[in-house]
């Protein structure tokens, strides 16, 4: 598999504090890569660097390179806004826009980016995105209802649909299931396996079973360093590093 996204010597800072240190990672195209590690190890910071959301935090900046199809998204002259349209993101807490209906939420990324759409095109994109997010059957009769009238799990799938509507190439998911019950979690996980046919997926998770169930590759991070990266099966059955083994067997973290 060719690599969709590659980080080279990537470090992230909050003011003068370094959050992640010189990360070199390759994310293969059309596969799911999980990033695991204890709280505060820099997992979220790493994925937020991948679509230039890290720099939204006041005083934060990143150094090094992130190559999307071989082109550095941190190169001078690259517009962060354009990068984020190619690399979508779903957050820990479901964040439907409360002032918008379900269909407006899905179309928000297009409409607010000034993409002119005919009503029929819009409806088509809304339906396609909701179907991809496995939400269409549940909401097709109430598309005009507010986005936060849905349950937590449905809201999270609505956020997935919203991210997919702008047709990104990569989907970043920052602990997308941590606020969901097991049934909703299972639906999101099924979704990941369907979506990887079309997208490159990177998921941050606290839940090691989730990584084992969904990911083709897994990266283990600890205190801002990348400790180990490899095929998920190898990481969980035969880790090369002592720290990885300690973490996955629950000895620390």
């Amino acid at each position, binding site marked *: 598999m060719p690599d969709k996204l590659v980080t080279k010597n990537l470090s992230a800072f909050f003011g003068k504090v370094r959050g992640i240190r010189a990360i070199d990672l390759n994310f293969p195209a059309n596969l799911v890569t999980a990033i695991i590690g204890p709280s505060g190890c820099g997992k979220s910071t790493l994925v937020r660097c991948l679509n230039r959301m890290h720099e939204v935090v006041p005083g934060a900046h990143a150094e090094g390179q992130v190559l999307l199809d071989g082109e550095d998204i941190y190169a001078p002259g690259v517009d962060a806004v354009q990068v984020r349209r190619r690399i979508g993101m779903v957050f820990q807490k479901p964040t439907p826009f409360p002032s918008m209906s379900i269909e407006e939420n899905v179309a928000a990324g297009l409409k*607010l*980016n000034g993409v002119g759409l005919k009503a029929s095109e819009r409806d088509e994109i809304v339906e396609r995105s909701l179907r991809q997010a496995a939400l269409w059957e549940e909401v097709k009769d109430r598309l005009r209802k507010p986005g*936060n009238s849905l349950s937590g799990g449905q809201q999270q799938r609505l956020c997935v649909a919203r991210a997919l509507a702008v047709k990104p190439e990569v989907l970043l998911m920052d602990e997308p299931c941590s606020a969901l019950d097991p049934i909703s979690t299972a639906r999101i996980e099924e979704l990941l396996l369907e979506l990887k046919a079309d997208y490159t997926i990177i998921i941050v998770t606290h839940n090691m079973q989730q990584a084992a169930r969904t990911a083709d590759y897994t990266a283990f991070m600890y205190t801002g360093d990348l400790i180990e990266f490899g095929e998920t099966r190898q990481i969980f059955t035969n880790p090369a590093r002592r720290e990885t083994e300690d973490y996955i067997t629950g000895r620390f973290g």
Partner: protein
Amino acid sequence: MSGAVAAYQYRKLKSNVMMGVTVAATVVTLVPLFLVLGYLLFKGASSLNLNFFIHLPRPVGESGGGMGNAILGTLQIVGIAGLVGVPIGIGAGLYLAEHRRTALANAVRFAADVMMGVPSIVVGIFAYAVVVRPMGGFSALAGAVALAVIMVPLVTRTTEEMILLVPHELREASLALGIPRWRTSLSVIVRTALAGIATGVILAFARVAGETAPLLFTAFANRYWSTSLRQPIATLTVQVYTYAISPFQDWQRQAWAGALVLTGLVLALELGVRWVTGGAAKTAR
């Protein structure tokens, strides 16, 4: 065991006493409100008729007539004040919320807080100095400027506070969709805060609609219809003030009616707030 029961009885007694105190305080708060409304209705309703809304005041000695010009004048001045004050206030509030820690933001925030505490008559003097004197006379414009100056800090601070109530995650979610920052601010953040901002705006309107002092030497008064911004203009508050302290019974009756109309106007605005926020609460659920 009996000690525990006694302690429980004592705690229950304390609870009841405190409950009684807070209920009494609530009643004491509400009594003046209903007395004012009731007395206004009692004194003013009898002088209220269609003529009051559409006729000019009559000279002393002639009965009848109305405050039509003053009602229109109040709507005009408050409307113009809003046209000037609301966009400035919302713009400033948006700036304060988006650039919270800059030196300019701190200075503006401090100035707005001070402005809210400035007595309204001082604002009137200010408008007198910067508008009435250069223009060479009292004018509707001067009155509107004075009211706008009162509105701006109110709208600014409520806008800022309402925008800050919008969860940070929404901003990030919007930016992560590749939506530019200005669009995120306007179409996601402000739109989410809109019900709260509208509430603040309507409350600011209600507040300035009842102002008298800053109008006394800006808009002054006018016994006739006027739509000119450069001429003095009648307003309900000033008219009520003038009529209430006059020695003529007819005028005093009219003052009561004017006060009733003014209160009705403010009440209608407050109900408008309820309606706006109630509607917003429904969509948010």
